[in-house]
């Protein structure tokens, strides 16, 4: 019997609040399945399970806040054979457990189309199993909904429990266009809906709805495909706020100005995020003996190569200069592994995999540094896709636990703001932070001549307990070296 514990979703997290279970006892889960939604000071995070099995018992109720490491659920390992046979029969049959275990992407048996008879094999959709969360599959079984009829509103179109619930309900809301966004006091009379109305709602909106006591079913979504967004929920909970002057982009923007904009999840959340950042950074400054190195890199070769490359590429294949910097850093880590890993229990533990934390500022204020997992294995295109995906999800607060907990080194690129140099603070328990400033034209001497070339200032903040300046200098030189041969990136 394994224990599924409250994960540490970053050095600044002491405790987490369980918001929602996506599984119940008897559900078979695969490694990597999203099983719960946990609120931290920064964001609600979808938590993945790291061991497959069958959920035996949920130990923490939604709404409870527990310290990191607290067991959240008991998981029986090995959903096949004896373990599954021992499962309560009314919750999961061995066949179901085996089917789910053997084919993670497949729906439960009754949702899978019967083996096509030779003459009736013309249902191509039915053979593509719907991708659904365990909870969605269970809910589908419960209410007799065929998941293959549903369109998932989860990430990557995954069918969530909400989708199934929404599909099983009569159309709950058909608000007239002109109605204000306030939730109707009385449920709208159900209107038969042959296709089933699915509630499309972002995780942030769901959380806000809970916090503000708004029934999402009564909110008109303004997001893509009518999805309910956090803003919709906030509007529904209060009369529209008067337009506020946009806070200035300086970090010293007054707290009141920042806090009063409706763009902010909530005042408390912002305050909590500031406290979390403060705690992590204070710990860093208190415990980590930082040393700092800076190095100017001639970016002309890399950028010229990139511009030519992008010229012939369509939008989805285009690469931003920042991705070149990330890629060069990931490759340089392989040359200088002393920069990658954790300082724990008085010693440095290097890591082979480069889980590259990317410092991402939130428009509402605050900062999150989720990781691109296994960045060392991602070529430029794959890395670009990951960066775009990660930035998009961070700014809409849809992150996963593995991205929050596993960064082995952090890179921050503040180039868009026009700063030349980043003086970074290491994110514990990591041992290095790489900072890139703006890539800009500077006078640059080359071959005895001064000319205008595009240059970036890269800095390294590193932990003197894990490495010395000489090693750090090799690391920055390795980044430089990689950027002089962009075709090899």
């Amino acid at each position, binding site marked *: 019997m394994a224990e599924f514990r409250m994960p540490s979703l970053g050095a600044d997290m002491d405790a987490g609040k369980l918001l929602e279970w996506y599984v119940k006892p008897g559900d078979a889960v695969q490694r990597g399945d999203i099983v719960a939604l946990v609120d931290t000071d920064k964001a609600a995070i979808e938590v993945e399970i790291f061991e497959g099995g069958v959920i035996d018992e949920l130990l923490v109720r939604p709404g409870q806040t527990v310290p990191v490491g607290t067991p959240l659920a008991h998981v029986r390992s090995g959903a096949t054979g004896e373990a599954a046979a021992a499962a309560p029969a009314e919750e999961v049959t061995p066949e179901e457990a085996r089917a789910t275990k053997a084919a993670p992407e497949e729906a439960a048996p009754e949702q899978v189309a019967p083996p096509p008879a030779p003459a009736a094999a013309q249902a191509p959709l039915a053979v593509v199993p719907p991708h659904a969360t365990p909870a969605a599959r269970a809910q589908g079984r419960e209410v007799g909904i065929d998941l293959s009829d549903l369109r998932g509103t989860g990430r990557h179109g995954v069918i969530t429990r909400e989708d199934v619930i929404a599909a099983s309900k009569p159309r709950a809301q058909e608000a007239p266009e002109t109605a204000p966004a306030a939730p109707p006091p009385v449920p709208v009379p159900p209107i038969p809906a042959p296709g089933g109305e699915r509630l499309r709602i*972002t995780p*942030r909106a769901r959380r806000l709805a809970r916090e503000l006591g708004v029934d999402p079913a009564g909110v008109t979504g*303004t*997001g*893509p495909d009518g999805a309910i*967004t*956090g*803003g919709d929920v906030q509007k529904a909970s209060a009369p529209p706020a008067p*337009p506020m002057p*946009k806070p200035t*982009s300086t970090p010293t923007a007054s707290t009141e100005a920042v806090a009063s904009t*409706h*763009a*902010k999840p909530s005042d408390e959340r912002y305050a909590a995020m500031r406290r979390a950042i403060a705690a992590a950074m204070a710990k860093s400054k208190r415990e980590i003996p930082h040393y700092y190195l800076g190095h100017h890199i001639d970016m002309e070769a890399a950028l010229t190569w990139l*511009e030519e490359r*992008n*010229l012939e590429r*369509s*939008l*989805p294949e*285009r690469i*931003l200069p*920042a991705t070149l910097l990330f890629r060069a850093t990931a490759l340089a880590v392989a040359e200088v592994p002393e920069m990658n890993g954790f300082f724990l229990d008085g010693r440095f533990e290097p890591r082979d995999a480069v889980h590259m934390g990317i410092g991402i500022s939130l*428009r*509402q204020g605050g900062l999150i540094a989720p990781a691109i997992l296994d960045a060392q294995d991602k070529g430029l295109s794959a890395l670009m896709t990951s*960066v*775009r995906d990660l*930035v*998009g999800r961070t*700014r*809409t607060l849809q992150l996963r636990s593995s991205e929050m907990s596993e960064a082995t080194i952090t890179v921050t690129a503040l180039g*868009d703001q026009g700063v030349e140099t980043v003086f970074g603070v290491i994110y514990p328990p990591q041992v290095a932070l790489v900072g890139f400033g703006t890539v800009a034209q500077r006078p640059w001497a080359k071959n005895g001549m001064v000319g205008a070339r595009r240059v970036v200032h890269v800095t390294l903040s590193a932990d003197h307990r894990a490495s010395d300046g000489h090693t750090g200098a090799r690391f920055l030189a390795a980044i430089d070296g990689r950027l002089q041969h962009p075709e090899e990136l």
Partner: protein
Amino acid sequence: MTEQEIRDAIMSSLHSVAPEIELDEIDPAKPIGPQMDVDSIDFLNVLMSIHEQTGVDIPERDYPKVQTVDDTVAYIAARAS
């Protein structure tokens, strides 16, 4: 596509990247970036979403022509089938 459809596609693209921004407050004649605090990655995500909805690709050299909502509508309208 009608001009209104293009405008809607652009607004929904902006919304998907920055759901917390009130679209009503965006001045269509002014550059989007400073109004929404979008960085280069957000900007690329907006262009990708517009591309998905309208089928129009915007090459890098034309980025200066798609800095405001109005300009982007005109740009897409001239190229959308």
